[in-house]
């Protein structure tokens, strides 16, 4: 589904953040990218999403080189949930979902179906549909942010530290929902995280990013051995 080869990217003036990244995510897979702040995780996601133009290497999506700005990539089937409270604070939950969906879908019935699907996957949102997003708790907002991306029925979902600042219980729920959706829609998910939660063991691949380079790749079993992780970072 997603294939990165030798991607280099940064912020201009010689500030390179990513060095020769090779990474691939297949359909239906959950790929977890671990790393500290500053390791280049967010930069990597933004590069895939088209907000940063790579200075070297190729990014292919479904076998085709990726082109266009972020808006076009959403339409191509890539959805992105930025870190932090990536919701429209002044809009209601319902409106947030509708806005996200209507970027790629205009059919009202289809949007309603999707919403039913999303509410099924994120049951916590059901009772605050008419609440203004800004008034919800951080965890709820994160749920909403992810469900907004899901509303777009992407083939590839990019999640930037969805568990940051959430209580472990919420993280668990969030990953359950992600797993649920992944199972039902068969979409590929690329998540970046810096702290580990047991629910992340569901990942198919784990890679560790350090100072802009992928230093280790492996399966979810890597996560269990935090001592080893510690030494690697």
């Amino acid at each position, binding site marked *: 589904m997603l294939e990165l080869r030798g991607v280099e990217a*940064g*912020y*201009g*003036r*010689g*500030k*390179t*953040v990513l060095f020769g990244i090779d990474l691939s995510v297949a359909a239906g897979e959950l790929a977890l990218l671990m790393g*500290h*702040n*500053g*390791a280049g995780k967010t930069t990597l996601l933004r590069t895939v999403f088209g907000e940063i133009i790579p200075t070297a290497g190729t990014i292919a999506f479904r076998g085709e080189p990726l082109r266009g700005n972020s808006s076009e990539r959403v339409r191509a089937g890539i959805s992105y949930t930025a870190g932090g409270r990536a919701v429209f604070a002044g809009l209601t939950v319902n409106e947030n979902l509708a806005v996200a969906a209507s970027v790629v879908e205009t059919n009202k019935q289809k949007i309603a179906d999707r919403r039913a699907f999303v509410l099924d996957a994120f049951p916590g949102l059901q009772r605050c549909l008419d609440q203004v997003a800004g008034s919800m708790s*951080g965890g709820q907002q994160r749920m909403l942010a992810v469900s907004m991306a899901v509303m777009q029925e992407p083939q590839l979902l990019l999640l930037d*530290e969805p568990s*940051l*600042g959430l*209580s*472990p*219980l919420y*993280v*668990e729920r969030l990953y359950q929902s992600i797993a649920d959706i992944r199972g039902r829609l068969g979409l590929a998910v690329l998540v970046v995280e*810096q*702290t*580990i*939660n*047991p*629910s*992340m063991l569901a990942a198919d691949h784990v890679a560790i990013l350090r*100072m802009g380079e992928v230093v280790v790749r492996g399966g979810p079993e890597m*996560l*269990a*051995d*935090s*001592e080893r*992780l*510690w030494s690697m*970072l």
Partner: protein
Amino acid sequence: MINYLSQILVFVAIFLLLATSLNLVLGFGGVFSIMQAVFYGVGAYAAANLVVNLHAPFPLDLLGAMLVTMALGAFVAALLLRLRGELVIIGTLALQLVFSTIFRNWNAVTGGSYGIFGIARPALFGVPVSSLTGFAAFAAVIAAIFFGLSLFVARSPFGLAVRAQREDAVLAGTLGHDTVRERAAIFIIGAALAGVAGALYAQFIGYVDPSSFDVNQSLGIITIVVVGGLGNLWGTLGAAVILTFLPQLLILLPATSAAAAQFQLLLYGVILVAVVRFWPNGILPEQPSIRSAPARGVRPALLGGMEDGKALLERLAAVTVRTLPTTAPIVRVEGVSKAFGGLRAVDDVSLAIEPGRVTALIGPNGAGKTTLFNLICGLLRSDSGRVFFGSQETTRLQPFEIARLGVTRTFQDVRIFPKLTALENVVFALSSAGAHVAERAGAVLADVGLQPHADRLAGSLSYAEQKILMMGLVLAREDPVVFLDEIAAGLDHASVRALGVLVRRIAASGRAVCVVEHNLSFVWDVADIVYVLDDGRLIANGVPADIQANTNVIEIYFGRGGAPGHA
């Protein structure tokens, strides 16, 4: 002809003063004021009243006009200048409209719509300057004096400070500058200059009425400044000449219809749009206030590319760090807390940063490290708890006051003044620290290897060079307490290692160094003592080896791998 040119010369002088006043405020100070015509008008009315009612001789009228406009300027500065730029535009526009009304209606002082008549021309040594050529000479001298003073202000350390706060007020504050006061000062200076222009105008025309000080006048002044170039007073001079002559050329068009006059409006509008679009720097772009002494025998152009930034960074390890003559104070943080909304970003944290050591703060993203830095440096006010530098409490001090106690802090990644040259950056960092600033700044740049780039805008340097410059600012200030926020971010191994050596050497010179860092290998390399923050709370502290072995720390950093989570 000579008389005609004389009259235009007077207007050039008046518009030069007005535009210079606005360029100081807008171009140098970054304060977007569209009420310059108000100060112009207030100066004119003040001078008119002084001359007509009190028969004040020159230069009392001029001084009076300056005093009144400065008082008004101070009032506006106090109310508006802490707001974000966009609101300053609208706030000053509102005042412009309010004052237009006041000019028209405050009969006792402005003569209302009638204006004030019979304003005598000034007398010099008892001889009235009544002829047109005489007045033109007089106006030219006045304009030259005040233009010269403005140039002096622009090139002074104060001028540099004003430009620096325009670029980044927070950074300027942490380098020991009271930016609010500097902004207010340049605004008041601008008001006074516009007041002088008003006084000249009143005495030249001999009559003031409200129509000359309306919003269109303010916008016209902005056009001159923008065409001339923000931050360049010579450009303003050029533009004042051109734009005062240009409408005169319109007399080429037969004034047979109303249309002729509308052309001037059109022309000014087209010029404004075109300049902003195609020539955003105006006639003359901003120039640095200081230039480096030419490097002996070495032409900068030849140096460029000889050493790239990375090599320079690696050289940092060997840079001279002067030993601290006195002992640095211990920075003590006692039970400090800070909440944002419901979120407790820093929760009852106590720690000590001791001289001669590197103290590191680590913790996952959002743990409150930078917030704690900001609390110590005064950028944030703590909700409770106290901070001491040695025996002095700094809990409630402003950032610039804390900086003046001998603290340098850097910001995440890299933060410098991009529109100042490298040399100016260092000079500014030193400017709250006394004499021989330029020489010392030059020496520091030579030390870190940036001498060839001394006169380049910092924003045009490469990322590595900017980082070096930032470290140069730290070294230049030679402060006993140094806070470094994520300086290793975005660099490769060799550079990080070199920076680590430098940090060690800074501490070894007797300074108290505190680093916030995500790059843990850097921390293990440089730190003497490590404090671990999680969710705003201090959860562990000790020497790096202990922290590395602390499973609790590993857990908070990487989650509870394998173990079931709890709510």
